[in-house]
């Protein structure tokens, strides 16, 4: 923690993007499925973090702070987003025709599994989607409560329902 205090704003921002970049990128994928638009969202999140960092006074953990910005930005984006129109060349792989023959291509099967999960998450209502994404990032109930600004018991309730909804979505997709 003490070495973080000595960081310049630039160093701190770069470290945050290094540490949380992959998680924020996954978070963005929960809000936007079109790759080029997703990149836009990721840049918006990064910009929001950059703008918010000088105001961070350590009232919560840095992790909570970053996820909170990411989710609030994602939510704002979801609100602003135009009705789903996906450029044909950017449709996710899950929509491409799948060869059902037993190829020795485990990678394809894995990708399909990943896409299935991602698309099931993308199809959940926002309130469930946020809880699921934070749960998959291994945040505790307390941290999720802090990120979303709800009580821990509310997190537990929402998490149970979200898991059920995700399970149903996955079963429906298979």
């Amino acid at each position, binding site marked *: 923690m003490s070495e973080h205090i000595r960081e310049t704003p630039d160093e701190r921002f770069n470290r945050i993007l290094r540490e949380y970049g992959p998680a924020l990128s996954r978070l963005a994928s929960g809000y936007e499925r079109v790759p080029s638009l997703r990149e836009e969202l990721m840049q918006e999140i990064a910009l929001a973090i950059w703008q918010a960092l000088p105001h961070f006074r350590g009232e919560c953990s840095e992790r909570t702070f970053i996820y909170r910005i990411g989710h609030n930005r994602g939510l704002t984006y979801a*609100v602003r987003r135009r009705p789903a129109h996906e450029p044909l060349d950017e449709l996710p792989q899950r929509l491409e025709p799948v060869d059902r023959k037993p190829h020795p291509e485990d990678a394809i099967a894995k990708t399909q599994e990943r896409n299935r999960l991602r698309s099931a998450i993308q199809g959940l209502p926002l309130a469930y989607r946020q809880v699921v994404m934070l749960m998959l990032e*291994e945040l505790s109930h307390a941290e999720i409560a802090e990120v979303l600004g709800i*009580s821990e018991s509310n997190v537990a309730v929402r998490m149970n329902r979200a898991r059920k909804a995700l399970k149903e979505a996955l079963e429906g997709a298979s």
Partner: protein
Amino acid sequence: MTIDTELDVWRREWREETEPFPALKKKIRRQNLRIAGAIAAIAACLIVSTIEALRTGNAFVAGLATGVGFAGIVQGAYSWWVRRGAWRPAAQTTLAYAELAYKRAIATARTTRFSFRFLVIAVALYAGVAVWHWKTFSGVYGLILVAMIAELFLLDYNRRRAERGLEESKAVFEQTKQFADAGAESAEER
């Protein structure tokens, strides 16, 4: 300790593929350029029309300069006024952000509606003046009229987009509120 296999599998799948984070500079540069471009365009219109009015002493150009200045001030003031209470979220919660986004969507819709109506009146007035002075109406003034009409179409497109955005943000806000209320009730029951 219980092992939650299902959750572990989901976590593994979720974390397996991650895209690299894009460069931030591009976004900042584009955002700054957009703001600077909008300010520069308004300032250029105002400066050029004012200089022309002073240089030529032409009443028509003077009227145009006054109109551009007046339009800039009125629209800027209106835009600022409708955005009151929509600058920052009331709290750091999802519901507060959804509400903020909804308020901003209302402000955007109202601003574009206002700008569109304002421009309709401006085009009508300008066209009226053009007809009145049709003998001295030069090509440049004609071009200004064409540009105003083109802007009218652009504003109409933006207005429709803003209305759609408003509907969407309202739906998300209501959904978020409903979830927040339902969650709170369930938590209380427990």
